[in-house]
């Protein structure tokens, strides 16, 4: 257990692609139980950061410490098993499976039966399957998509697809949830619903880190905001302080900060 009250700590993280440095000597912490937003102009390295944390990419240098243990060397499924779940900037649902089945995949980590057991239907399989359905349904209801349970996931409108992705990630019962632009492409009403959902998630004890462009949502919902520019941290503070930060204003100069 981590004594500092931080669920995650990033130390001197660096990652380059060929000649391009996407993340440069990045260091920050994520206190347990808050909502932390990461903002910055496009190309600032935000999705790369998520990919590094979730194990999709390996850092060139640096450490990622989660609940007191290093995780930078782990593969994505191992990172998930440690308690980190995520969504993706371009929605990565399983389009041919139903909405409910998508969330059921989220229960994979919380179930155990292997290939042989399920093939010959050993005792306990039925019970586990019922449990998976029940829990998946719970998370689907949580995000108010229960009425879509039997539809193919690919047929949902974008806003609901994004919400479904969140439900699927929640079904893994993570301690840390990484959300990559959960409000991108959503209208103000939908964005507000996402905001309420995020607060609900935090109130259940899950730490949330989100990458977002919608400043309204970010300022409303986060307790901490970190600003990245060209892979470097230029601010990491409470939302009001960040908003007034001269370097931040500089980085965003000429860019309309409200995406609606």
């Amino acid at each position, binding site marked *: 257990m981590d004594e500092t009250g931080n669920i995650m700590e990033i130390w001197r993280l660096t990652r380059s692609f060929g000649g391009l440095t996407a993340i440069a000597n990045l260091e920050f912490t994520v206190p347990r139980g808050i909502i932390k937003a990461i903002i910055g102009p496009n190309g600032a390295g935000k999705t790369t950061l998520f990919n590094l944390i979730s194990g999709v990419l390996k850092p060139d240098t640096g450490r990622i410490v989660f609940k007191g243990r290093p995780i930078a060397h782990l593969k994505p499924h191992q990172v998930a098993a440690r308690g980190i779940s995520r969504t993706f900037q371009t929605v*990565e649902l*399983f389009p041919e499976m139903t909405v409910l089945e998508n969330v059921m995949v989220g229960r994979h*980590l919380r179930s155990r*039966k292997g*290939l042989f057991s399920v093939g010959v239907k050993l005792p306990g399989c039925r019970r586990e399957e019922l449990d*998976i359905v029940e829990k998946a349904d719970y998370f689907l209801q949580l995000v108010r998509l229960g009425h879509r349970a039997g539809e193919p996931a690919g047929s949902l409108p974008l806003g609901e697809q994004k919400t479904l992705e969140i439900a699927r990630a929640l079904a*893994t019962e993570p301690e840390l949830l990484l959300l990559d632009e959960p409000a991108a492409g959503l209208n103000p009403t939908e964005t507000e619903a996402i905001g309420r959902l995020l607060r609900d998630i935090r109130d259940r004890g899950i730490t949330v880190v989100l990458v977002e462009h919608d400043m309204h949502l970010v300022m409303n919902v986060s307790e901490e905001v970190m600003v990245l520019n060209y892979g470097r941290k230029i601010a990491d503070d409470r939302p009001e302080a960040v908003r007034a930060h001269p370097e931040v204003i500089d980085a965003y100069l000429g860019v309309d900060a409200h995406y609606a």
Partner: protein
Amino acid sequence: MGRANLTGVCALALFVLVFPFGARLLGVSHYTDIMIFVGLSSMMTMGLSLLMGYAGQISLGHAAFYGLGAYTSGILSAKFAVNPWLAMLLGALLSALVAVVVGSPSLKLRGHYLAMATLAFGEIIFIVINGWIALTDGPDGFGNIPSLSAFAFGFDSISSNYYLVWSVVIAMLVFVLNVIHSRVGRALMAIHGSEVAAMAMGVHAAAYKIQIFIVSAVMASLAGSLYAHYVQFINPPVFGLFFSIKLVMMVVIGGMNSVWGAILGAALITFLPEWLLFFEDFDVLAYGMILLLIIMFLPKGLVSLPAAVYRLAKTGGTRAG
């Protein structure tokens, strides 16, 4: 596995049960022999459909496992007097081992590269079978393979082999359907749908791909063993490149994403020579044409035909395929 599938299994079992009698009644009793080969091919196509349709991986060398099973069974039982059941088991173990050795590096490749790797692997096995004359008698093949027997009952006749083979097919079908409708099946479909998301949900993609590869290899191996003990003579041509491609053809034509499609495809392709006269000279051409038409216009296979027709009727044919 769902009520629909359960009904399907029972219906298939019933059909299989009465088929020989119906065939005899209609004067086509040799169809029973053909059905044995449909059954053997089904074992392989079901495994391939799991691999291709659900896990989204391609194998163009599966005839190699058929060959490994047949030759292990044949060599051990004919030349070393090993009990045929034991020989079959050993063949399955060998195939599983080869699947791990070849599959582990191969399944890290994707798409075209994986296809080529499995193609190369299949060819290498074929060349070895052809070339290792001391062990396999090379191109001539060898006979005197004993048939299987249980409690003094020998599986010598067409009928007994027919029921044996189809019992195994139905058992495998139940197994596969159970897997599909489980967390493992969903994990496989997730890998196919979006591997990166599946991994993010804790699905160990590489491990599952290998497991399915091994299962499909074992299924093919068992089919090969049953083949050897039925025909009691084996030679290399059966296990070559073209059969591997034929298996993929069966899966695609029947329907990649459906275990029922796998059986349908196996039945159609196996019976094709029977139904098309003068097939001999045209067979390769016919196969190519059918595969091309299906993959272009009905990529989900014949099993999706009812749904496609329904959609077409509903929208008056104006929607893009």
